[in-house]
């Protein structure tokens, strides 16, 4: 069992600006933590710093209470599954899994027992004599996972382990990883991905990272929390836009009224929408942005007049189980919304549609892009 603690961790390559900045983070023992973020946000660098494959420019990294900044990777009790699998091509599956144990100078019988147990758990029993080149992508990934679990580490590190697999295999392996983590639940896991579906499915805790000017201003971490926390209570527009698929709709407006009980916004089209957020940070006349997820929009009945957005249907994507309606807001040709509607919804391209946005599902972001606290999320999501 191992917990991880990062204090003010910073990484910059020689002569360049920082790629990871001011990271303060605690990952509990047996917790499954996912680093999520767009390309270039430093999530893999952060993982590699935990592994010891990258030096930490400043700050402190502790594993199980021991500062490990200068500890060799093999002494940190971590095991890593690489994006490219990193199997030794000249060794058999058995030798690949046993390699780390041999370096640890375990006796032959123990090595054999551990390798065969891991192989059984991963359904690799029949493949132990094969070389990696003779395996499929999914089998190689399982060998890579076997090589990690056989060492019984305190921390599992996964660097985008599913990105080389096809869609079906990705879901299967994702489930497998979740099962293995439950089986070896004494170890904590840190998992890097840019795929929010993977993050939502696997994580106990998501660490969402951002890059560029946001990182320079606020540090690398945009928000830390459980998957549903990030979904329901995003701290800012970046988090709100990154979590959820299709991404959240953002519509600009002006504050009509704001108080502790809610905010009313007038959109450019003249429609007025209320949001159940604590509006004490805003004043009437301020610019603000309304955020509403596609799955929370619904087609309003013909007589509905309040809490609606009128938009012209531009593109309709039918997936069977649901329909994505892409629509341009009335009087705002450059503003688009996407609504996730039922699979058999009756809409036609070119028609103007009234979309109902319930107040409890609306988010409001101030002029700096920060979210106002939502009022009745906990009750509804419980």
């Amino acid at each position, binding site marked *: 069992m191992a917990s991880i603690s990062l204090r003010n961790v910073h990484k910059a390559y020689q002569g360049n600006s920082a790629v990871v900045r001011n990271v303060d983070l605690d990952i509990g023992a047996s917790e499954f933590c996912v680093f999520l973020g767009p390309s270039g946000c430093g999530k893999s660098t952060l993982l590699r710093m935990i592994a010891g*494959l990258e030096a930490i420019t400043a700050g402190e990294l502790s594993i199980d209470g021991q500062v490990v900044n200068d500890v060799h990777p*093999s002494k940190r009790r971590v095991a*890593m599954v*690489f994006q*490219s699998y990193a199997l*030794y091509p000249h060794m058999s599956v058995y030798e690949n899994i046993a390699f780390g144990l041999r*370096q640890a100078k375990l006796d032959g019988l123990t090595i054999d027992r551990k390798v065969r147990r891991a192989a059984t758990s991963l359904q690799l029993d029949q493949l132990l004599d094969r070389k990696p080149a003779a395996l499929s992508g999914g089998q190689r990934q399982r060998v890579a996972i076997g*090589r990690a679990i056989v060492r019984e580490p305190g921390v599992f590190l996964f660097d985008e382990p599913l990105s080389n697999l096809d869609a079906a295999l990705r879901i299967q392996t994702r489930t497998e990883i979740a099962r293995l983590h439950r089986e070896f639940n004494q170890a904590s896991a840190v998992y890097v991905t840019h795929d929010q579906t993977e993050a939502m499915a696997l994580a106990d805790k998501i660490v969402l990272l951002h890059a560029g000017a946001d990182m320079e201003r606020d540090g690398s971490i945009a928000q830390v929390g459980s998957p549903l926390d990030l979904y329901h209570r995003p701290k800012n527009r970046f988090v709100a836009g990154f979590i959820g698929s299709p991404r959240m709709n953002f519509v600009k407006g002006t504050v009509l009224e704001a108080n502790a009980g809610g905010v009313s916004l007038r959109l450019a089209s003249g429609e007025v929408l209320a949001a159940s957020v604590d509006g004490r940070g805003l004043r009437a006349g301020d610019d603000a942005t309304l955020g509403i997820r596609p799955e929370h929009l619904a087609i309003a009945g013909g007589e509905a007049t309040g809490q609606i957005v009128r938009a012209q249907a531009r593109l309709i994507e039918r997936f069977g189980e649901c329909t994505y309606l892409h629509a341009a807001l009335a009087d705002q040709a450059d503003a688009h919304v996407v609504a996730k509607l039922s699979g058999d919804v009756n809409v036609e391209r070119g028609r103007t549609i009234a979309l109902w946005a319930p107040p409890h599902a609306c988010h409001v972001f101030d002029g700096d892009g920060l979210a106002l606290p939502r009022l009745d999320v906990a009750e509804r999501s419980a």
Partner: protein
Amino acid sequence: MIALRIREHALAKRGVSYMLALVWLAVTTLPFLFIIVTSFKSQEESFSSSVWDLPQRIDLSQYESVLHGAFFVYLRNSFFVVGLSVLLIVLLSSMAAYAFARLDFPFGKTLFGLVVAAMIVPIHATLVPIYLLIRNIGLYDTAFALVGPYVAFGLPISIFILTEFMRQIPRELEEAACLDGCGPLKIFWRIYFPLSTPGLATVAIYNAVALWNEFIFAYVLTSTPAHRTLPLAIWDFQGQYTSNVPGMLAVVTMTSLPLIAVYAFGQERVIKGMMAGSLKG
């Protein structure tokens, strides 16, 4: 119509390519054919018949006389010197290549530049200093006198080839081995060395061919037949059989045979190793 013209053009291009290939084949193989054919002629026949005539009868007497001479002493010396030199070149150049390809150390790039620059040092400019050095350390006219210069001159190109080869081995393998508890030496020996087999074969065969034919160092640093290598055997036989052309060519044929065997066996690997890095896999 256009398609037909394109096809005709492609056929013409292929025809020219085949012609050029045939000419090159003739340039490289005809002298060798001449050597083999003439080595089976009697001394009289070599004077009386045309150069390209086949022997009227196979005369093995030249081979018998060569084999009864000191040929096997030269052969043994060549195997020893070339074998030891190639072994040392492969070991030292692979270690150096790993360091240049994967380890960060001060002035690494400058040092690699110097190693590559050493390829342009002409052998002849170093003959006198090396001769004096070998004499001073008491190795003159021993098989070991040749090993030092051979290794030194074989290292630059070998390091160059292997460094490029090792740079293509994914860094993740090194990182995985590092997490598995390996230090740089173990990573080299357990991962990089076995994975560089095609490159090592290239280096071994390339150097073996070059050293098997090496003449000038062997001539300067050895003086007695007991320590001389095969290229000097030809020199010696040339003196011994000044007018015996078939005898001399029998020596040449027998000297070339091990080389041809090695090249025929390893040609594919040499080309693969040389091409490494030229294309993205």
